């Protein structure tokens, strides 16, 4: 009787001729998630099977599997020879000892001497005899004991379905560059794009000496937390302090943030193209702050040609917080380090900046030189 984990995948079955590709990527991602832990990964029809792991590491492996996108659900079960007694002993192990239940059988091996109905009835009957606190309910049972008869002479027996992360295998939807601040939203935006199969790379802007190392460490920690969801294992940073100083010295105060964001987008596009990313990703949510109005978004979009994906655009703050808590980034995001020095924050930022005014103000700056300088400050951290 061997402990195994059965993994079912999400939308891959919708893919037609590309299915092989999606499955290969999924398989690589599963292997990567379980790296460093003893295991064997088998592909069977329509699902994957993890075997050969240490019992003590079951929880760790399940935790890692639960964060792999493309996993619809998974179950910890037992793999036994498919004779009736072995199957029954396994069913005894996995079945809760009270409440309503049913047995559901699935036969991949159609030559098995009993039909699915017969096998379910047999196993169910014996369970009922041995555990008087159980009762049968085939319509709405509290527990379902599943028996999967496989073609290689074994059966999988399990009773619990754990929900997976859903989505698409990371790497099947191209590469995007996430602009990650130290806040709550951007990590969630990265998570959501990774969920749809995108390879997410990370770019952070700091403004040392106006911001401190604590802020940078916080972003590194967020990046580490995101890497559990197959988001990039490295973080690129650029210093925009001098850009802020120049804007502060030369341009209208109410445009400070708008102008800085245009620089950030331009810089991000450069970095994205270098790493072959096909889009930018931000955590913007419409109207959340002054720079996230449609006018603000328009002014940022105007300086880049790559598409900018904003997966949170229609989310309320509390909806974003809910996801941040689920993926474990919330507590780090709310640590008290400023990601932008208040020295440069205007008292009244422009809510609906006019593009013509912005462009006029921007002419006071040597955009190219400032960009070159910021790009020269690039640092890459492996997490």
């Amino acid at each position, binding site marked *: 009787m061997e402990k195994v984990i059965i993994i079912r995948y999400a939308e891959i079955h919708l893919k037609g001729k590309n299915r092989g590709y999606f499955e290969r990527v999924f398989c690589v991602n599963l292997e990567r998630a379980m790296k460093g832990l003893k295991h064997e990964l088998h592909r069977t029809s329509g699902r994957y099977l993890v075997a050969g792991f240490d019992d003590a590491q079951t929880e760790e492996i399940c935790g890692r599997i639960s964060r792999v996108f493309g996993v619809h659900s998974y179950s910890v079960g037992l793999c036994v020879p498919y004779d009736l007694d072995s199957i029954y002993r396994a069913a005894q192990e996995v079945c809760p000892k009270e409440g309503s239940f049913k047995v559901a059988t699935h036969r991949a091996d159609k030559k098995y001497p009993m039909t699915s109905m017969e096998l379910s009835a047999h196993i169910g009957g014996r369970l009922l005899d041995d555990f008087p606190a159980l009762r049968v309910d085939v319509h709405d049972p509290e527990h379902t004991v599943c028996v999967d008869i496989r073609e290689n002479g074994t059966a999988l027996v399990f009773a619990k379905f754990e929900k997976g992360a859903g989505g698409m295998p990371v790497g099947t939807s191209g590469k995007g560059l996430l602009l990650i601040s130290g806040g709550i939203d951007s990590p969630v935006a990265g998570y959501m794009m990774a969920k749809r199969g995108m390879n997410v790379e990370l770019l952070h802007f700091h403004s*040392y*000496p*106006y911001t*401190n190392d604590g802020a940078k460490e916080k972003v590194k920690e967020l990046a580490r937390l995101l890497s559990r969801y197959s988001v990039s294992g490295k973080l690129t940073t650029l210093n925009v302090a001098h850009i802020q*100083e120049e804007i*502060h*010295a030369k341009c209208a105060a109410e445009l400070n943030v708008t102008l800085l964001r245009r620089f950030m987008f331009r810089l991000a596009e450069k970095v994205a193209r270098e790493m072959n990313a096909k889009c930018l990703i931000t955590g913007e949510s419409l109207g959340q702050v002054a720079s996230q109005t449609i006018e603000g978004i328009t002014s940022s979009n105007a300086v880049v040609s790559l598409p900018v994906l904003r997966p949170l655009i229609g989310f309320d703050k509390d909806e974003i917080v809910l996801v941040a808590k689920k993926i474990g980034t919330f507590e780090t995001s709310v640590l008290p380090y400023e990601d932008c*020095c208040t*020295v440069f924050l205007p008292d009244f930022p422009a809510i609906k900046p006019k593009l013509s005014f912005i462009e006029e103000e921007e002419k006071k700056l040597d955009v190219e030189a400032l960009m070159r300088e910021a790009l020269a400050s690039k640092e890459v951290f492996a997490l």
Partner: protein
Amino acid sequence: MIYLDNAATTAPDREAFLKAAQFSQEHYLNPSAQYGGEVSAALKEARGSILEKIADPAQFELVFTSGGTEADNQALLSCGRRNAVISAGEHAAVYEAGLQLKSAGVELRLAPIEKDGGVNEEKLLALVDDKTSLVSVVHVNNETGAVNDIFGLARRVKEKNPRCAFHSDGVQAFGKLPVRLTKDVDLYSVSAHKIGGLKGTGALIKRKSFALQPLLRGGGQEGNLRSGTENVLGILDFAYAAEKKFKTLEADAARLRVCRERLWQSLDEKFYVRFSPESGSPYILAVSARGLRGEILQRLAAERGLIVGTGSACSSKKPFSRVLEACGHQKEILNGVLRLSFSPETTEEETVLAAQTLNAVAAELGARIG
């Protein structure tokens, strides 16, 4: 590197540490055990040696704690009834313990402080009445270095209400200024790591007849006033470090007073204003770079090998220091606060170099943000 944040913590004295470490490694027995006599004797000696430096052992006794914060908490939480008076210049350990008293129903009265951080004596005394159970006034203000005349204050408090307890946080005074506790002071907190000792060791010195309450209960150590197996290493190290500091205390203070003034004179008046009074502790010089941000100057200075403090290390996560705000300064001044604090190891040359660096970073930042 030039280190001028000695009010936050000091480098542990190497000799004291090695001596204490060797003893505690060789004599690791529990001092409270029947057979722990040798360790217990060493502790007794350390206790006596620290106490006699600032108080008469016939009238005072000493309870070892995990540091100044614990000593302050124990002092306040022991005596809060009816109303308690603390100054607005208190360290967070006293202030927060005061808020704890307040939440337990004690009326907390906050005595205002002057521009330099020193307590306003008359206003404080006016808050004391026959229902006051405790007055707590910091000896040396840890953010500005202002020295309060706690002995005069204690006497006047007792004249007004003899049953009122008087506590002083002496963490920035012990081992730095000549101190002799008088009978009017009931409780006095000290800490080891501000004078070359280890972090995690301190003491509450109390008048013998004063009825102190324990914060921690258990095995009854420290005369039942602070349970927990004694921190032998920290305590012995504390005693050895104090022994050394007290030998040269007055000479160090005189020399550092010169260094402090030299530093101040070398700072460019275009950028810096001064908080610390001349009569204050020679160990602390608080200044503000007008219109600039202290934390940014701190980072720029660190890049050039100079470590300085911004306000109090314990409160640097808040936008302004509560204490300096209570001094009545404007926001523009509060943003730019730097605290330069010294140790007997600080040289005059270092203070001059530090001033040059501080002038350079203020000029640079001023130019950068216009």
